[in-house]
């Protein structure tokens, strides 16, 4: 079934946070719904559409940044009370805009997730969960990692409410009172939760920051995963989900908004498997999504709000071009009025801005005045992509970006991203002191670029900071710097469990350090570890290397730390960094290690299929051009041996595959060399002189000769 939706822009507010737009329930006979949206200027706008024009119902005064919005109301009545949270405060408004509730949660941190259900209020602020009933404290929970979102199961069947937390460490935590009932492992860090059935039920939809979506059934003591949608096309992370029957087949469809601007509608086929029905790409992050009817009766639509505050509908209403001639003229008259009004407003603004500019210029004459431009908001994300083991950096600004300067004090590779139209220029840099720059690159953006996506490839063991200086096209010109840590084990990712049967190398530390100290060292070395020291006496984290597939287990407590990995290079890096960090704090460490010689050949065997595949691919790709020429020369390819003919047949795929993984082979070679050096380093031998003969062996690669070379004394 094909779904055709047309885009209509309704209005624009300030920069919006995730899940800050809701549709109010329809009133009486009218099918059109009002839209409530809150932005980071603290303004809540409620509007309805009348003849293609956004008519405000109410608008509040600016205040602190609003992080979430939810709708609520007494059980059994329409859910039309608007709740917003800003800082540690929750406020409630009626649909007319009258404030009826101000509630100070008295949390030290700002609330970043909220759920309202009847008289119950659930709020989360980074690690803390709080439940209030009628504004009275009920339950409290401290999570092991940051809480990204919260939802709550409620139905008559359940004896009590079941809150579900989406936590950064790739689990959904299901609570019972102040206690953890159980947790549900999900394939990526969950960023958003939504009830599948708004009227109840126990199914919860989740979306992850790496773009996966899933449905889990929350049971009493365990959860069952119904289905998962992988992110094969490498689209952006999920920011918002809603369920609504837009296809009109009687089953709720899933509406998804992503941080790369993609809006998707998933329907269900006869076997109840989700299938993509519609896709549209907006130019900026989609922060909220709702299904309903806003623009015109009786056309249903998908309403979205984007980062810069655009409220856009994707409506089932047929496009105007199909309308009759007369109607078209009338419609354009309406838009004409709209354009006129806008122009008039612009002119007024222009005058005001000119005055502002003049005043600003005048202050430059004074010797006491200062110039301080308010900080503009940048929406950024720096994440490790699992499939190509590289980091992706996305930057989004409210206005067009003029240029971007990237600076790094570690050697990293900047990769080209097709979507990105900015002109990149690499500047010569002096990697030696005093300035220590390994990368200096400028991106000059085309007009109207508000979002930039970059890819960065790091090398494990080399750590430092990547800095991005963003200059938007806004007077007076300012630029803001953002810093991103490249950690020593940058290619590692948290995982739920590891394979215990692999041969492992062990590294143990004993010394006079506190639990917090060793935790801070681990945070320094590895990504995706919560900054807060975990509760309890000791903690264990599992990681896997996204490039090689090797694993790492870190267990530590006060005065003691144990690290296990099948990759000797990982252990070597950890040893170097940890001892350096300890020395910085003047703590004496007693380091011992236990090297399993089998682990090296085990790692090599893990690399083997990857290496072999890459070598074969490189060889085939090299042949393609020559074979094609032969084919043209001879008129056909029948005379070739089948192997070559298959290369010709698959040439397009091969080339694409080859293009996808630039420098893959070099990276593998680098890791094998590291492995070789590290293996002998633990034995106290320096084998740097032998590296050239190792490279010779790699050039004419054969697993056995490589293994032999590693085992040579």
């Amino acid at each position, binding site marked *: 079934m094909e779904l055709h939706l047309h885009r209509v*822009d309704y209005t*624009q507010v300030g920069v919006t946070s995730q899940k800050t737009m809701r549709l109010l329930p329809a009133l009486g006979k009218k099918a059109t719904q009002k839209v409530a949206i809150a932005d980071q200027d603290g303004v809540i706008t409620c509007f309805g559409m009348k003849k293609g024009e956004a008519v405000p119902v109410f608008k509040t005064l600016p205040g602190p940044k609003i992080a979430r919005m939810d709708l609520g109301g007494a059980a059994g009545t329409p859910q039309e009370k608007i709740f917003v949270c800003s800082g540690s405060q929750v406020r409630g408004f009626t649909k007319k805009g009258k404030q009826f509730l101000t509630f100070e949660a008295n949390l030290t941190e700002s609330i970043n997730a909220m759920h309202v259900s009847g008289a119950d209020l659930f709020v989360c602020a980074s690690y803390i969960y709080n439940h209030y009933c009628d504004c009275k404290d009920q339950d409290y929970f401290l999570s092991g990692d940051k809480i990204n979102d919260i939802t709550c199961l409620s139905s008559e069947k359940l004896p009590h409410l079941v809150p579900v937390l989406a936590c950064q460490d790739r689990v959904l935590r299901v609570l019972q009172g102040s206690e953890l009932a159980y947790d549900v492992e999900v394939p990526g860090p969950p960023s958003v939760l939504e009830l599948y059935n708004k009227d109840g039920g126990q199914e919860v939809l989740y979306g992850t920051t790496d773009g996966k979506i899933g449905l889990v059934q929350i049971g009493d003591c365990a959860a069952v995963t119904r289905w998962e949608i992988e992110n094969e096309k490498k689209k952006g992370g999920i920011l918002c989900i809603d369920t609504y029957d837009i296809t009109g087949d009687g089953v709720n469809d899933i509406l998804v908004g992503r941080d790369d601007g993609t809006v998707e509608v998933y329907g269900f086929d006869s076997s109840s498997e989700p299938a993509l029905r519609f896709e549209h790409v907006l130019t900026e992050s989609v922060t909220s999504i709702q299904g309903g009817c806003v623009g015109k009766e009786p056309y249903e639509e998908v309403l979205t709000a984007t980062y*810069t505050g655009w409220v856009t509908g994707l409506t089932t209403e047929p496009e105007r071009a199909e309308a009759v001639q007369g109607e078209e003229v009338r419609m*354009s008259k309406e*838009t004409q009025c*709209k*354009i006129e009004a*806008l122009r008039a*407003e*612009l002119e007024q*603004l222009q005058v*005001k*801005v000119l005055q*502002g500019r003049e*005043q*600003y210029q005048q*202050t*430059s004459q*004074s010797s006491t005045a*200062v*110039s*301080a*431009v*308010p*900080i503009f908001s940048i929406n950024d994300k720096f994440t490790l992509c699992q499939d190509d083991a590289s980091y992706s950096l996305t930057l989004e600004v*409210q*206005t067009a970006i003029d*240029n971007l*300067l990237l*600076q790094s*004090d570690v050697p990293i590779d900047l990769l080209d991203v097709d979507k990105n139209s*900015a*002109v990149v*220029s*690499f*500047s*010569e840099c002096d990697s030696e*002191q*005093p*300035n220590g*720059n390994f990368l*200096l*690159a*400028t991106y*000059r953006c085309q007009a*109207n670029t508000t979002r930039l996506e970059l890819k960065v490839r790091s090398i494990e063991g080399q750590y430092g900071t990547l800095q991005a*200086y963003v200059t938007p096209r*806004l*007077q*007076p*010109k*300012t*630029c*803001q*710097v953002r810093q991103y840590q490249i950690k020593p084990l940058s290619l590692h990712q948290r995982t739920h469990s590891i394979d215990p049967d692999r041969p492992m190398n062990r590294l143990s530390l004993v010394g006079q350090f506190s639990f917090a100290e060793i935790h801070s060292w681990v945070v320094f070395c590895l990504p995706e570890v919560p900054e807060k020291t975990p509760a309890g006496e000791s903690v264990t984290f599992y990681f896997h290397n996204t490039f090689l597939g090797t694993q790492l287990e870190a267990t530590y407590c006060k005065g003691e730390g144990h690290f296990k990995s099948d990759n000797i290079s990982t252990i070597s890096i950890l040893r170097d960094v940890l001892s350096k960090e300890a020395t910085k704090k003047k703590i004496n460490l007693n380091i011992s290690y236990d090297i399993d010689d089998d682990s090296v050949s085990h790692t090599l065997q893990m690399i083997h299929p990857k290496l072999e595949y890459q070598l074969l691919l490189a060889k085939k790709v090299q042949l393609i*051009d020559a074979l*094609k*020429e032969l084919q*043209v020369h001879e*008129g056909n390819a029948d005379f070739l041996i089948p192997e070559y003919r298959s290369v010709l047949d698959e040439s397009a795929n091969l080339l694409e595959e080859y293009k996808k993984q630039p420098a893959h082979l070099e990276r593998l070679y680098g890791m094998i060399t590291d492995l070789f050096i590290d293996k002998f380093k633990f034995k106290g031998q320096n084998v740097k002189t032998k590296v050239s003969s190792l490279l010779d062996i790699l050039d004419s690669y054969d697993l056995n000769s490589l293994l032999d070379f590693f085992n040579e004394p």
Partner: protein
Amino acid sequence: MMVPIFTLKLNHKINPRMVAVGKFDGVHPCLTAATQAGKVFIHNPHDRGQRPAGHRLSQSAHDSDVSLLNINQAVTCLTAGTLGPNSTGDTLLVGSQTNLLAYDVHDNTDVFYRDVTDGANAIVLGKLGDISSPLAIIGGNCALQGFDYEGNDHFWTVTGDNVRSLVLCDFTGDGKNELLVGSEDFDIRVFKEDQLVSEMTENETVTSLCHMHGSRFGYALANGTVGVYDRTARYWRIKSKNHAMSIHAFDLNGDGVVELITGWSNGKIDARSDRTGEVIFKDNFSSSVAGVVEGDYRLDGQKQLICTSIEGEVRGYLPASKDLKGNLMDSNTEQDLIRELSQRRQNLLLELRNYEENAKGVSQTNSRMGVIPANTQLQTALSVRASTEAQKAHVELSISTPNETIIRAVLIFAEGIFEGESHVVHPSVQNLSGCVRVPIIPPKDIPVDLHIKAFVGGRTSTQFHVFEITRQLPRFSMYEITEDSSAALPAGRVSFSINERPQRVVMWLNQNFLLPEVIESPNVSFNSLRGGGCMSFHMASNGQITLSTDDIDLAGDLVQSLCSFLAIEDLSVEADFPSYYEELRTTLTEVDEFHSVHQKLTADMADHSNYIRNMLVQAEDARLMADMRTMKKRYRELYDLNRDLINEYKIRSNNHNALLARLKSVNQAIQRAGRLRVGKPKNQVIAACRDAIKSNNVNALFRVMRAGTASS
């Protein structure tokens, strides 16, 4: 939304920029393109399978509409069009590194086949100036050559560097075509026959040129820039991270004015308005675009825009019909306009908020915000720095703040002097200060605008004020003035007299050199920081100017710059560059040597091929007579001979490359001799040099270069 009216998959790769449409039988247009293995394919869907194979032409095995033409050499350029006065159809012209072939596809015969020693990197067909017959003009290594239908060479001149693109257009508006030449030294030169009338300097190799209408033409550079010139003034340009593979002028929206159609390396095709550069249409191929041409491919009397990709995909687009109202993209203009206006409103509101917040003042001293005194102004200074042990000689740009604020980073955007388009200075945290010194080493003597962006704030700020300043680097900035007049003057010398007051010359010196302080007298000496030795400038009271330098290029640049400053139209010059002339003399002897070696090697090769033929016959005879021993022996000999041949080929190709390099430097010498003069004397010198070379009169050549004329 506009969609292609036809799409073809040709199963042949297409070499970039080597695509043409020709009506070889006078009626049916055929898409012609160079492909792999030294072949050219001709796609003729109109009369199937009626052509005889043979000679060069053969039918493609897997597509009956395609015939293949064997060139047996890597094709470097290709075009089709009317060349002969009474041929029925178009002639196909194919250039390679050594030859130019004019071919009649319809009759399957060669029209002519010429050796071109300078190679053919680009080709254009048409009428030039007053020359009566249409010419096939090829551009090679520093040389331009035009052939008529009989293969006679009617036009020859030299240009600054290897030619990469050519187009014919009426640049001066006199009703006759001029030749526009884009070359690897980043220049677009305009030739009125063999007279150079204009020169535009770009900042990268000029890879494509196309005529739009009137005196307007489009261009593309190797760094991803495309744009439009009207005469010598640039209308607009845009830069992309992709490379423009092919540009073409075509009226796609049917408004009577052609648009610039660009095919990009990422497979994108876009049409831009010739006035503003605004995109009015775009489409995407799955692989890089190879060429963009036009032709009436459906034989319905309407021209189509035909785009081809390197994988052999072809798409044709008809000009848009009236009812699309020029709106070729699938967009809602009203919605877009509202969106744009809203965006502008949002921007203004933000700016206003900035001023309001600023006026409120900062309540608390927020160090992150990067508060700076409102009267902060950046000081910039340019100065010449001679080389020291630590650093090479450079021009120093120093940027400093007047107060305790620091400069976090400096970005300089400038064209043609950095590797990319920008240069960044980012001191480490320990070395932050209110002053940044940027060494700049411009590789060429060109005036450059430096667009400086400096991030100014406090030490711990995360937000900085951006100061944007533009400074101009004068043309001759890598020269340091010296007081030391005792040093021996260089032997190279240019002298000429002008009718100007010395003050004007002093003014020129002050504007074009980076001087620590304004000079008063026109008699000055400079040291070249690029290691070119010393250069001295002397003007006598009678207007006689003497330039002493051993660098002939620099002398040329100085003469050109001075004359354009003083608006001198014609200038003849006495020029003596003993060491350069000596070098050139050696080069000329080397050219002769390489020529004779070349001939000898060719003769040897002919011998060998005869020998091979004999040997092969003998070997096969032996095989038929079952004399295996003799056969083996013969084949072994054949194998040895083959190896020798390969070795010889290598020698030959080395010899050829060396010869090409020498020829290029000879062509450059003529160009340089020309650049020392302006206007008519310049063209006379080039013509006289060329005559001297043609008649192999080396002494006359030097006489011309020295005095400007052969007769003396």
